[in-house]
């Protein structure tokens, strides 16, 4: 238990560090966001007034204090380019990212684990080589390439899916999820294969087999349960890479998600929005890892004892 409390304490420190780092990084920038916000035809006077209104003429430490106190009261500032509270923008776009990431993770886990099991069982067989070759390909292909090829073939040529996922409902998430999950599927397959292959060499598996149990039950009942723990940790790590890949997928498939919001924020020099999206995504990853750690220590008796 004390371990978990310590982890939570660490998490808070890291979160604060992350917030500070983002804030500092985003203050060293050129370009006047207000101009972008009000359009080319705006006059100088209006721009000046808006700058004062947003507190951008204040010294650095005042701005930082305002920001930090704002974050704690749930106020992430107002986006320049979209002219809305950042919190509201994140609240509208996050469900889309979550849907995409969850669908992608599902795809990756199912495909990765199934391929990993088959490869481990048929170690050094044709299927093993094939799957491992393909999985390395999965890890090596840029996300945008998978996304583009899927969009071109399945949506454009065969017209099976909508081009843009925005208003298309669940079916719109199939292609982006595959594109996003592709990389993860590769690494999950490789991890499942290596851990399972190791477990399959253990003595108790031989014993079970010797007792006359059929092959499949041995794998599912005995081997897989011991191989699943590293894969769970892997899933937490995957959250971070899913969010990274989502930036690309959301751009290609026009999904109004956090990643696209971040890209838009950069294009529009929209500091509050960029700050908010990055802070939110990073906090998500940090909390995800915290939850995974806690789950892990609850699930794995060995770790529980160590605590």
């Amino acid at each position, binding site marked *: 238990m004390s371990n978990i409390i310590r982890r939570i304490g660490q998490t808070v420190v890291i979160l604060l560090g992350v917030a500070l780092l983002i804030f500092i990084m985003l203050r060293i920038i*050129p*370009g*006047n*966001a207000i*101009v*972008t916000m*009000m*359009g*080319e*035809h*705006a*006059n*100088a006077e*209006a721009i000046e*007034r808006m700058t004062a209104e947003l507190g951008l003429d204040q010294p650095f430490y005042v701005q930082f204090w305002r920001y930090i106190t704002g974050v704690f009261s749930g106020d992430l500032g107002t986006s320049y380019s*979209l*002219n*809305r509270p950042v919190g*509201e*923008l994140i609240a*509208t*776009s996050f*469900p*889309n990212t*979550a*849907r995409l990431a*969850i*669908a992608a*993770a*599902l795809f990756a*886990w199912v495909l990765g684990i199934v391929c990993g099991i088959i490869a481990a069982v048929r170690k050094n067989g044709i299927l093993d080589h094939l799957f491992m070759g393909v999985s390395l390909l999965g890890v090596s292909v840029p996300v945008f390439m998978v996304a583009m090829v899927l*969009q071109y073939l399945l*949506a*454009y040529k065969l*017209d099976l*899916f*909508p*081009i*843009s996922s*925005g*208003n*298309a*409902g*669940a*079916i*719109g*998430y199939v292609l982006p999820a595959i594109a996003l999950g592709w990389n993860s599927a590769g690494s999950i397959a490789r991890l499942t294969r290596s851990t399972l292959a190791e477990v399959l060499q253990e003595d108790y598996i031989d014993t079970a087999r010797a007792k006359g149990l059929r092959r499949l039950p041995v794998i599912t*009942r005995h081997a897989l*349960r011991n191989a*699943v723990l590293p894969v769970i940790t892997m899933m937490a790590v995957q959250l971070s890479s899913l969010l990274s890949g989502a930036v690309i997928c959301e751009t*290609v*498939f*026009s999904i*109004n998600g956090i990643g*696209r*919001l971040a890209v*838009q924020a950069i*294009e*529009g*020099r929209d500091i509050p929005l960029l700050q908010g999206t990055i802070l939110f995504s990073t906090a998500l990853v940090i909390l995800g890892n915290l939850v995974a750690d806690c789950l892990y220590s609850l699930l794995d008796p060995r770790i529980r004892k160590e605590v």
Partner: protein
Amino acid sequence: MKKLMALLLALMMTLSLVACGGGESEGSADAPASNVEAGLLRVAALYDITTMDVAQTTDNYMVPMNIFDRLFEVEVQKDGSTEIVGSLCESYSVSDDGLTYTFKLRDGVVFSNGSGLEASDVQYTFERLLTAGGVNDDIPLEVLGAEELKSGAADTLAGFKVTSDVDFSITLAAPNAGFIAELTGPAMSIVDRETMAEVQNFGIACEDTIGTGPYKITEWVVNDHYTLEYNDKYWGEAPSVKKMVVSIIPDASTQNLMYQNGELDILDLEYLDSAIVESTYKTAYADRIISGSRVGLTYLAMNANHEYLSDVKVRKAVQMAVDVDTIVASVYAGDAIVENGIIPTGVWGHNDQLQRPAYSVENAKKLLADAGYAEGEVKFELAMDSSSSSNTQLVYQLIQQQLKDAGILVEIKPYDESSWLDLRKSGEMDAFIANWTMDYNDPANIMYTFYGSAEKTKLRSLNYADEEIMARVAAASGITDDAERMAEYQALEKKIVEEDAAWVPLLGNMHLFALGERVESFVPYWAGYSNFYAKDVQLG
């Protein structure tokens, strides 16, 4: 361990429900055309709007154009010519000195919330643009007493007199023959005084943003889409489009694929490379393309304070070295016209007699050599707004190559939009290429904006220095005789382009749209905006 597996399984199932449950009720946009709701128009925009309040923006006009009305509108005739017609204003007259305009409002117009339109609403609209700290106060500033109201020295707009519910008059500080034309601009959308006094979030909240136009805004999911629906209290003819959904698709190539898949009813081809337009749209969709003229032009501006560009001979050499014909043919596949002046084709006062110096690499080289420059000595930076359309970016690259052929070394430097504007404002930018689209159909719009004062020339025409010319440009809008006024503008234009070579006119491109099968006809906005009136769309 069994429990663990069960737990995992349950977790996965819940997640998959969450994953799939999200949007099923929204219906598939991929449905064949026949399944699309009757009266629905589906279009896409590259960026979301930031506000629906014209006081706060100079370019987010899609919603204001459709939910508000102006006093006057520009109507595009069958032959493509334009005419200014009354909208909320039924009739008007001008005094002989050109200073006082007397207007009569259309009878029985109501806002979409039932509140009636009165002359005081127009007065409120003018005063609000001046006092609400907005960005669109150029036009009301022309009214007598506007400066006083804006600075707080006066409480009301002295030049604005309401005489009855439907009658009012406006007195200008100085005569301006283009005043009525200016009133057609989206910036002059009329709002309701009574409603404005009650609502909190005008321009942001749909229910607070009330106009007299053919549509009302019913939904706006930021960064995702917004929906306009027919306003059944609209005073004019009921439009064919009953509902319009504008999806935010920040990528032209995705929009292109969506159109081909039948997910969009009108595709703006402005941001697609002309090669795609040529190979796809002019073949497979040839009968689905319509062209709105773009009343505006693409130009190259050069900094008069620059080491080399300050020399008029260098500027003339640049004018000669640019081969606009090739650019038109290659980048725009012929869907553009070569512009030789400042006042674009289609604008009142355009001079089609203007000639540009003949394209000649040799003459350009010779001019530079005569002026005492060694080959490759003249160099400058061409600053590019990296958010400009891919066609504009191609123009940059071609011009760089063409100038290189003439021995002028140009470096293209991309900037993000705000840094680019900042650099322009500082007056330190060497040169840039940009498009200007007319806000209203009068040469004053472009002449005054680019050459009207030292402040304007610093930003727009990069330090054009002739103060006498600036004074004449500023004074020209006060000439009440139209023929005389146009002659003055044309003389000034000739001086700036031919004698001073301060401006390299490039081209005006057609603004093409592709219409989906459900659309029967569509008239784009006269100035060639991407924004349009949904009432000008006829569904099949």
